[in-house]
């Protein structure tokens, strides 16, 4: 899946997160800011990386502002932002797990 435009998903409310995505040539740059980065930073990055891998995202700039969201919320918001930023709208549900 290729990121072709800028997109946002999520909110800055507690238990949620804001995902910002922009196209970038040649590399994948992921920036994570979180209120709970000391306790859960590794887990948040794992969820983000697993989600990006499953959706075959290899290029782009992704900035995440986490406000203490559960893993399932992180996954959902990131997938929403990617789908908004990518070409095509057909969802492969097998890759959304």
């Amino acid at each position, binding site marked *: 899946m290729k990121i072709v435009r800028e997109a946002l998903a999520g*909110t800055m*409310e507690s238990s949620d997160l804001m995902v910002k995505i922009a196209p970038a040539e040649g590399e994948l740059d992921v920036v994570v800011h979180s209120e709970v980065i000391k306790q859960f930073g590794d887990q948040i990055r794992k969820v983000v990386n697993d989600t990006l891998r499953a959706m075959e995202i290899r290029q782009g700039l992704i900035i995440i502002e986490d406000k203490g969201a*559960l893993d399932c*919320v992180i*996954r*959902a*918001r990131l997938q*929403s932002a990617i789908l908004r930023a990518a070409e095509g709208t057909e969802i492969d549900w097998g890759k959304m797990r």
Partner: protein
Amino acid sequence: MKKLRRSMLFLPGANAAMLSTAFIYRPDSIMFDLEDAVALREKDTARLLVFHALQHPMYQDIETVVRINPLNTPFGLPDLEAVVRAGVDVVRLPKTDTPEDIYELERHLERIELACGREIGSTRVMAAIESAVGVINAVAIARSSQRLIGIALAAFDYVMDMQTERGDGTELFYARCAVLHAARAAGIDAFDVVWSDVNDEAGFLREVELVRKMGFNGKSLINPRQIDLLHNAYAPTQQEVDHAKVVIEAAEEGERNGLGVVSLNGKMIDAPIINHAQMVLERAAASGVRR
């Protein structure tokens, strides 16, 4: 024991905080809303939030319902694709006017269940009746599918269709009777409308008392504060529990003595009375005794 469905708590599908915590309130069923509570531009992300929440362990031991968007909108079918694959227990179809609406939903459910490996027929359905046409067709709708667990009356659209407004309940009188009779004729549950003024507890309790006495299984709720009030109102009194125990004991003694019919304090105890006593004891086991 039949599944208790006194309380069905609405959760806006786009609200991450509520999706992360609502299971702690223990309603009988949780209803994720993808329809009216979600803005058009948030439909896609709400669908994914609900897709993942449904699969989370925190929602595995509570009945989950999703109100999808109508199938004649661009959102209805994608909603269905997502929630069936995520293992939802019940799909609530809004604005159900005819049995054909349920047949159409069934066709899609069967196709998606087959595609994702779910057992055919395992996704249950609930029809929401929101118009005069829907009320008129309530019996046919209630009998339209083996998947139906219940039908619900939704007041906001209904009163607009009837060119009136929410009031003391007079405006819903015929619709409540029609929906309830249709549900009972089909052997499924009936759910009453939401009470939208969360701060008016007295009004809420008056309405709950009315629909409980009419025979509704429960109500849709919009705030967790209403759950305990509703469950308490549906709990039997201590007097009802005591009487039910005496009825069951008398019935058991009659059975031991080989009697088909027994009497208690000069009144005959037959199957409907015994069934009612069992239901009272089951409700007491689930909700305790009314405070």
